[in-house]
């Protein structure tokens, strides 16, 4: 018997019939990974508040998800999410936004949310370029890549977001590409359940801007690139810097338990009120 609609349509608003992304964009794969994680955990969309910023990947929760979504100003979704979590600690907060939004313009919010270890899940979609504005060099752009703002190749070194967030003190840090949707789903599930700051960096393909700049071709060619160049962390540990050049290290970087801000705050409030 054939189905009349996709099973995840029940998590989407009725008036949204199509995703807002370009053909072959990785955002859709990540959207499905988020919804599949929520579905497999058996959680309700009303348990969540989704926060996003500005950029292509900020369109993942809004307007698609039939839930409370907050589409905020550029770079500030984590700042808004911090406020929501402290105000409504019983809710699951999921921030879905891009590298330009969370790591470039909003980089400081990312660092300090990780330092505070506030309970939220951040799905950071990293496509390595400013896609929506026309393909300018981003902090995550691979060194030497010719983009619209670096016609002779960018001289800047590439930002390693996972290493930075891990150093800032997050409880859970993981990286996958859109070639690993099953692993990404499992990691998002762990990140949602994790009491503390959890980052899932999702390396995604932008066939329109990045594919053209890097001369990688279409979506399928970029997925092939991810398949051939991603290397798991357990193998990468034994390799030197030269061998890892141009490789994408995937896997779980940090998975620890530590004191979380919202629950610590609740405990402090109780202690102070008792005195």
């Amino acid at each position: 018997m054939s189905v009349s609609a996709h099973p995840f349509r029940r998590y989407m608003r009725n008036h949204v019939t199509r995703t807002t992304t370009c053909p072959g964009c990785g955002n859709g794969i990540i959207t499905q990974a988020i919804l599949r994680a929520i579905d497999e955990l058996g959680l309700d969309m009303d348990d969540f508040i989704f926060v996003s910023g500005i950029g292509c990947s900020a369109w993942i929760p809004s307007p698609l998800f039939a839930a409370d979504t907050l589409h905020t100003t550029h770079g500030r979704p984590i700042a808004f999410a911090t406020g929501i979590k402290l105000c409504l600690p019983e809710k699951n907060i999921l921030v879905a936004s891009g590298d330009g939004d969370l790591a470039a313009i909003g980089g400081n919010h990312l660092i300090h949310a990780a330092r505070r270890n506030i309970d939220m899940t951040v799905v950071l979609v990293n496509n390595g370029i400013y896609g929506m504005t026309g393909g300018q060099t981003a902090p995550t752009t691979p060194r030497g890549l010719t983009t619209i703002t670096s016609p002779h190749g960018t001289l800047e070194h590439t930002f390693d977001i996972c290493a930075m967030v891990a150093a800032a003190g997050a409880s859970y840090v993981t990286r996958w590409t859109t070639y690993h949707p099953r692993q990404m789903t499992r990691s998002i599930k762990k990140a949602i359940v994790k009491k503390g700051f959890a980052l899932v960096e999702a390396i995604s393909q932008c066939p329109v801007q990045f594919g053209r700049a890097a001369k990688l071709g279409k979506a399928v060619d970029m997925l092939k690139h991810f398949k051939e160049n991603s290397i798991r962390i357990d193998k990468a540990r034994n390799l030197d810097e030269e061998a890892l050049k141009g490789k994408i290290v995937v896997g779980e970087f940090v998975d620890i338990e530590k004191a979380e801000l919202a629950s610590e705050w609740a405990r402090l409030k109780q202690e102070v009120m008792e005195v």
Partner: protein
Amino acid sequence: MSKITIFRQACKGVEDCGICIFVCPKQVLIGSDEMNEVGYLPPQVKDESLCTGCQNCMISCPDFSIVVEKDASKPAAERGEEDG
């Protein structure tokens, strides 16, 4: 046999996307020349009997256009009887 359903109107075409064809290990899906209402060319099922029900295409579809229903609920012997 697993059942593949393609929602043609949600699909953004195999020309620029085509991820479903790429991730299928058994080459069950192929391109087609038939447009949907917004002008994209959705894939078509070449041979459904080859489908193993791995759901790679469903999980990797960025536009929620493919559903693969596994036939794992029934025991293998019963499936054989139904197929005749």
